[in-house]
């Protein structure tokens, strides 16, 4: 299973993602944003970081990179595309996922461990988790306040596209466990076809107990058929 990790200027979680994929036994390769083909990878990951410095808006400039068109086609054909943090922001800017990101309602960058609840596992990325499971992963972002309009939100929830929500240690859904003001505590969503997923927390930073959590391992293992 060869997994492509896309590197934009300013990406800074590329090596971390590479390391995590290796650790769980996958075969990662880097894809350069100026490349024009996906060299037959089976899945694409847009990793975290600050592509183009997050200048103007997170993900706004990266979206125009040459490789993005290929990723768009790849996703349209059902290919698996995962966006983590900045990658999620790019997927939103690309329109592969609904909604937009706003600056955290704390007005600050936030780095800390959070708890997540698996709301739906009906997507290849989460099939190794059960619904209701509580995961622990770090977040590290300044623009992570997920936003969709009220009417979109209803649709999103009805179609069960909300897959991860910020919760308390025991699964409590409460605004006090919402680190950034995301609507409905949303931490991760999928597209209607469920082959594209974006999440703000960093699963690649949660694959070793030594670093605080290994909740993220199964997300990457889901790439294995």
């Amino acid at each position, binding site marked *: 299973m060869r997994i492509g990790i896309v590197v934009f200027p300013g990406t800074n979680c590329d090596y*971390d993602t590479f390391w995590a994929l290796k650790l769980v036994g996958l075969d990662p390769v880097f894809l350069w944003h100026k490349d024009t083909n996906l060299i037959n990878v089976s899945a694409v990951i847009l990793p975290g970081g600050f592509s183009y410095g997050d200048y103007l808006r997170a993900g706004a400039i990266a979206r125009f990179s040459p490789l993005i068109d290929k990723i768009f086609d790849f996703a349209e054909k059902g290919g698996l595309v995962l966006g983590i943090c900045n990658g999620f922001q790019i997927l939103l800017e690309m329109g592969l996922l609904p909604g937009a990101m706003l600056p955290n309602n704390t007005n600050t960058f936030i780095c800390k461990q959070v708890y997540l609840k698996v709301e739906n596992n009906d997507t290849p990325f989460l099939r190794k988790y059960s619904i209701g499971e509580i995961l622990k992963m770090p977040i590290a972002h300044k623009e992570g306040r997920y936003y969709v309009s009220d009417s979109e939100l209803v649709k999103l929830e009805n179609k069960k596209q909300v897959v991860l929500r910020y919760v308390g240690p025991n699964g409590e859904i409460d605004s006090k466990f919402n680190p950034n003001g995301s609507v409905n505590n949303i931490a991760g969503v999928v597209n209607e076809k469920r082959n594209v997923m974006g999440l703000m927390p960093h699963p690649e930073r949660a694959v070793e107990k030594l670093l605080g959590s290994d909740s993220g391992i199964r997300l990457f293992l889901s790439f294995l058929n």
Partner: protein
Amino acid sequence: MGIYGLKDEEINHVRRLLEREPNDVEWSVISVIWSEHCSYKHSRKYLKNFLTKAKWVEQGPGENAGVIELGNGYKLVFKVESHNHPSAVEPFQGSATGVGGIVRDILALGARPIALLDSLRFGPQDNLKNRYLFNGVVSGISFYGNCIGVPVVGGEIIFEDCYSSNPLVNVMCVGIVPPGGKIYKGRAEGKGNLILLVGARTGRDGIHGASFASEKLEEDIHSQRPSVQVGDPFMGKLLIEACLEAGSLEGVIGIQDLGAAGLVSALSESASRGGSGVVVYLDKVPQREENMTSEEILISESQERMILIVEPEKIDRIKNVFKKWDLEAEVIGEVIDEEKFIAYFKGEKVVDLPIKLLTKDSLEFDPPFKIRERIPMPILSKNEEKIEGFIKKLIEDIKIKEYIYQQYDYSVQTNTVLPPGRGDSAVLRIKDTKMAIALTIDGNGRYCFLDPKMGAMNAVSEACRNILCVGGRPLAITDGLNFGDPDEPEVFYQFREVVSGINISSRVLEIPVVSGNVSFYNGQGDNRIFPTPIIGMVGILENIDYLITPDFKEEENLIYLLGDLDWLSIEGSEYIKYSYNIIAGNPPYVNLLWEKRLKSFMEDIRKEKIILSAHDISDGGLLNSLLEMSFWGEKGIDITLPEVEDYERLLFGEGSGLIIVEISEKNKEYFVKKVEEYKLKAFLLGKVVRGNFKIKPYIDYPLKKIIERGD
């Protein structure tokens, strides 16, 4: 003050050396490079005394950063740098460019930056200006560090009146070179090798920034606008990747960052190190603004620029790397044999100066000093009410630190085993090995104000204990020395004493100083800052299994104090400052021989893994350390202290050489034997328990209130 801030004797010295009158551009060049900031003219003589060598030191002071060997072929590169003056004028950009600057020092050695630590000092936060400075600085560090993907893993924060107009922002960066990786020096050598300037375009940023850092801050800061530089972390990140990639190829001879005094300093220093000269064509320097003069191009401090010395045959390949990363790279000149700095502009030779004049020939100053009177400790009136208030303050402090480090991405690069706020030092594992490193940064201006030498000894020994407490073996120091105006005799006394305190501690403990920074002119007269040496220290855990964390682990385990309760003293403590508003007396006495034995003991016993948790005693005393261990472990304690009159001393007094450790009952005998073997002493304080936080007969505090941080 004469030409651009040079003293008359310096001006005459230049004329004598050169045997002619320098032209205007040359004067300008000389004055920036002879500024305190670049030439260390008040400090050089004293810094020479430091212990800078050890078996594991590959590069001591003199390069852009120090280098030590970690074992298994890995090398660690690190340095601390201050950005006090820029941060006072524009806190956000000042601190952001401070981060960028120190990161490029590490990068210049060919190392990948893997960690940052920030040591911060501000005035009290009940004042709007001080809050503005504090928030600006923290968000500037967050802005730059997060964007370049280098985790901020530790630091310290202290609020004190003396820093109101002069905040201190010292940032330490640590980089790593893996086995087989090349260490670069900032060297221009080999006639005909090309000087490649890469990164941002040159603008009028920070003209005379180096001189600015070497002056007192004027009242009217608006006039100092040209000294403000803006950081571009995105370009900073590209520079990191491109320089590392270029450095992995053949053909790069030397790498040098552009910092204070821009091209002048970068070029003359690398020529000096390489025993060569340079000729540069200033028209080739990519410029951001129109009509820049030769002087401006030479001394501009535009950020995000580096210089590579490259063999001519390899130049295209190296340039292509920068092109790949969308960075400009221009050959601006070449290395020559004659040890001169020559610059051409519009076909005219504008600078022709000996390298030696620019680098080694600046005058040294050894101004007079005057011993400062000690401040005797007054007699305190007992006040029961103060205790509860102080505990609340200690809990509040935990929250302030959290407010800071949560704004820093401390987990990127996935190595952070012990994150900020979780221990005496940060611990980072090294991928593909069993090893980990411990990093800490510490200073105590209050102690140094009371007794500069003893204060500095406290800073070094505390940093050492911080490394020991997480299971590390201390290896080396980088020091950031922050002082007032060196021409004030009392300040120069403080400086000499502090250097001597660092020196003696570092020698006795055998922890060499491999890099550092000096910042003078932080306030003057009554407004001057406390002498504030900051000690950055790195240590190694040869095996990550040696890791010790400070959270209490299990009920019924025993809590020992390594050291003696008698050493606790309330003089100079955080407690009397907070509760009585008094800064007086002597700082804790540092017994270096004890510290040395303690170091050997901890270095030995960590391998047996019987120390289950450890934390040293520093600000806030025994009570604070216990409180933190309870907070982190979510466990109560049952401790009994002697019943004495001066119990405030026991609870809140501070002392050096003291470490609290947790061991299990079954290892008790062994532990005690080992303690005796090392000629140390330990005092059994009590036990870890499920219930309250109890220090009999003085305190019985609900654990819940601690865990919930008084919310």
